[in-house]
């Protein structure tokens, strides 16, 4: 653990962020923990930020950097939409993010996943890691928690999933990452974007599946003590 980090350390989003395409649109997912060193500054943050009606971005890394970048891009896209006379495409949004990330690569510390739906290309996901590389992918993972998901996605990802399959995959993945990454935690938020519009979903920690060495949450020890003891086994 880094002993130099303290309560005055810059707000960083440890984070697990995911973007997945399915036949008809995209599903974006993220955890909700924002940490300042070892302290959890916000346990219910919203890391999936709107850029336009049809394009959202998942933010990771420095909270300040990612907020500023998305604020600038939202501003540019707004003007672009007015000038264009129709909704901006996901590709344009992703390229604007890339321009800011690349041209300020020495000063920014943020990895972003842009996802959305437009009438020309349908659902698209673009990953923009540190350095400002732009890479279109069928699915993208990012943030510190993503280290634990490379193997999971190699095995679980399939082309042409339905909306529900895709969302379940995202929720499962973020939940698995939260289980192992100290910098990720809280609730799982998802955003589904398709031709019909945008749907936000919220999965609190106690609604998620339990993993290895995790126990069913109880109100109190007293409830356990007062409940009937288990029956002896009959061998």
């Amino acid at each position, binding site marked *: 653990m880094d002993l130099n980090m303290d309560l005055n350390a810059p707000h960083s989003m440890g984070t697990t962020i995911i973007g997945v395409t399915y036949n008809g649109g995209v599903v974006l997912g993220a955890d909700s923990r924002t940490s300042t060193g070892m302290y959890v500054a916000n346990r219910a943050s919203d890391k999936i930020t709107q850029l336009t009606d049809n394009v959202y971005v998942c933010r990771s890394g420095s909270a300040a950097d990612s907020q500023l970048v998305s604020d600038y891009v939202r501003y540019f896209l707004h003007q672009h939409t007015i000038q264009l006379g129709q909704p901006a495409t996901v590709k344009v949004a992703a390229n604007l993010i890339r321009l800011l990330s690349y041209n300020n690569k020495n000063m920014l510390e943020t990895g972003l996943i842009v996802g959305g739906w437009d009438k020309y290309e349908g659902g698209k996901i673009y990953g923009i890691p540190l*350095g400002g590389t732009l890479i279109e992918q069928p699915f993208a993972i990012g943030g510190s928690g993503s280290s634990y998901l490379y193997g999971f996605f190699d095995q679980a990802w399939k082309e042409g999933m339905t909306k529900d399959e895709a969302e379940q995959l995202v929720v499962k993945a973020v939940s698995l990452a939260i289980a192992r990454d100290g910098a990720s935690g809280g609730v799982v938020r998802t955003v589904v974007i398709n031709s019909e519009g945008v749907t936000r979903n919220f999965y609190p920690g106690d609604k998620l599946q339990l993993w290895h060495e995790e126990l069913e949450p109880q109100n109190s020890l007293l409830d356990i003590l007062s409940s009937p003891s288990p029956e002896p086994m009959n061998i």
Partner: protein
Amino acid sequence: MNFMASKQPENSLLGPEADSQRTLYPYVTGTSVVALKYKDGILMAADMGGSYGSTLRYKSVERMKPIGKHSLLGASGEISDFQEILHYLDELILYDNMWDDGNSLGPKEVHNYLTRVMYNRRNKFNPLWNSLVLGGVKNGQKYLGTVSMIGVNFEDNHVATGFGNHLARPILRQEWHENLSFEDGVRLLEKCMRVLLYRDRSAINKLQIAKITEEGMTISQPYSLKTYWEFSAFANPAQGAVGSW
């Protein structure tokens, strides 16, 4: 556009850096590119990996791209800088086409342009973190050159970047000859790529081979190479000295 003050530690010995920028280190990187001249033109090979430190993060990165009608550019190093170079070259080719004079930039000219760009960035201590391979054919003349991030540039019958310098070039020195057929050229490149796959930690088993001739340029679909592990010594390497490797 810059909207933030640069990070400078209090005990820094560096001069005023408020306005200057320097690329400190690469993030998403591509590994070796290998290329050779053959009978009809140039053959170039590169895998499709984009590494993020030691993680093999991206496995479908195209590191070879056509430039204009006559050239093929392969890059290793920072992928975002390669994407920026492609933007510069788009503009270069566009302006060349706008002359509408029947002339078009050949590989030698594109290589020279890239050399100037790379060297000038190096002089400003803000390099494009790439090693580039530029090959092509124009008017029957084959051309194969390379430029590094510090501006070192030369042309040769066969070139390689990164690990390829150490592993592929000795093989090419030994086995390359004038007027290789397409099949022999591909086999020679695959021999180099297989060695790189065995011995380069950042190599992945998914590659493309690109060909450029007077007629034009093609890039193969991504494919994987078979590897050999059946040496008897591999089965039980520590037999003679338990605990060793």
